[in-house]
């Protein structure tokens, strides 16, 4: 403590007994310090006598002042509602887009879908013409995957994977099925539980007007695949066809189900894509759900806020 601090504390009686005794001794011996104490004490007295002012008006509060600008909890603010609504719109738009562009349909109508959620989802989700369409029986693939409208909607997707475009238009589905059947027979009894295998990637077909060639191509591929032992690989576990064919070796096995080498490669490479489409489908649903929740939140908070402010 410097002299001023000690003098200041002394004036306020805030020194300890020893400190005070020491300072008083010092004051006795030092007239300058005494004078310093005097001037500071006078200053404090001057400050002490400063009058209390009269308030220029009454500061009493009204309901308005305390209730109108209440600190609304953030969830009840307009900002929150607006942000929720905006986010809901975005989420709903994206979610809807994801599902619509892939021609999302309830899976209940599909045979085997219960056991093949992943491939089906993959198919539905991206609309990327991955070979995952194995999951569909030919007839259904034709009717379901090839609505003409859907075809129009999805030109870009089909461009995405040219090598796989060995599918056929719905009109030629019977032919394709015939090929598939052939494949089944050639591949042996083991494959029969999984007729879907052969319908592989028919969906692509709507994309490919000159489907006649491709149908043949597909049939050839089927024949190749039939020759390939690996076709049997899929038979025991038809429900997991997609994963199996994509994960292990790719080309060879894929060709077993009726694809030529490039197509098979592309299938193999499409595994991340397939995975992504599964994710994307789930994401689409999640986005819709989240959007719905946020929309509800926006509406509810708006209602609550109005009610709160109306009180």
């Amino acid at each position, binding site marked *: 403590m*410097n002299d001023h601090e000690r003098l200041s504390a002394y004036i306020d009686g805030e020194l300890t007994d020893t400190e005070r005794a020491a300072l008083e001794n010092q004051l006795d011996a030092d007239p300058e310090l005494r004078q310093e104490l005097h001037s500071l004490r006078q200053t404090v007295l001057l400050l002490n006598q400063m009058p209390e002012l009269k308030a220029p008006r009454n500061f009493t509060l009204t309901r308005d002042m305390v209730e109108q600008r209440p600190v609304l909890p953030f969830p009840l603010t307009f900002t929150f509602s607006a942000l929720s609504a905006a986010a809901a719109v975005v989420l709903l738009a994206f979610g809807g887009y994801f599902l619509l562009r892939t021609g999302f349909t309830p899976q209940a109508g599909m045979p085997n879908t219960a056991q093949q959620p992943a491939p089906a989802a993959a198919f539905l989700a991206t609309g990327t013409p991955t070979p995952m369409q194995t999951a569909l029986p030919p007839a259904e693939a034709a009717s379901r995957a090839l609505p003409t409208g859907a075809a129009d909607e999805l030109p870009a997707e089909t461009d995405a994977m040219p090598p796989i475009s060995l599918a056929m238009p719905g009109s030629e589905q019977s032919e394709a099925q015939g090929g598939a059947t052939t494949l089944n027979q050639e591949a042996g009894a083991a494959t029969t539980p999984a007729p879907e295998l052969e319908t592989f990637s028919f969906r692509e077909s709507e994309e490919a007007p000159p489907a006649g060639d491709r149908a043949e191509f597909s049939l050839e591929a089927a024949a190749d695949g039939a020759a390939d032992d690996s076709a049997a690989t899929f038979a025991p576990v038809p429900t997991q066809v997609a994963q199996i064919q994509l994960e292990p070796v790719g080309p060879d096995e894929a060709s077993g189900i009726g694809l030529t080498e490039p197509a098979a490669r592309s299938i193999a490479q499409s595994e991340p894509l397939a995975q992504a489409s599964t994710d994307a489908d789930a994401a689409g649903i999640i986005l819709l759900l989240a959007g719905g929740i946020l929309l509800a939140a926006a509406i509810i908070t708006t209602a609550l806020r109005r009610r709160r402010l109306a009180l």
Partner: protein
Amino acid sequence: MAVNPHDDEQRLIREAQRGSLAAFNTLVLRYQDRAYTIAYRIMSNEADAADMTQDAFITAYRRLDTYRGGSFRAWLVRIVTNTCYDELRRRKRRPATSLEDMPGAELDDGPPLPDNTPTPEQITQQGELNRAIQNCIEALGDAQRIILILSDIEGLSYQEVAAAAGVKVGTVKSRLSRARVSVRDCLQAFQELLPETYRLNTTDTLD
């Protein structure tokens, strides 16, 4: 005797805490002069002082749940002080928002705003002295000024000042001593206003 007003105050506080605006307004009327005075000493002008006083009472009402007994006055003083201090800091961060800081503002000042007690009979030596003191207080930095006001004008103890200003007692001591020295030096220029007994001059007494 002092028990009744205190009990009455505690009753009003409890009622206000339960949402009674009428009870709180009774407290407002009781303390508004003091609150306004502190705000004026800190803000140095009437308009700001009034705004801060109003804001402080609104804040006080909303934070009544943070009052947990003890001196209601000290609790209120803390809110007023903090309200003013926050405003001063806000202005320092965004100085452009203050009209007074704009060039040419002085030219528009014209006749000075009516002082706190501008009635004719109060335009006396006492009034001028108080204005001089106020000027010297205004010359202090914010932190020192607030400590000085709480301690020497409001008469709060070191502990109360420390609590109100949110600093340690040791900080109160050192800031207060520096502020007092500054004000004393500043007041040397107003010797003629000082009552005989308050003369600060230090040289005469030296033998």
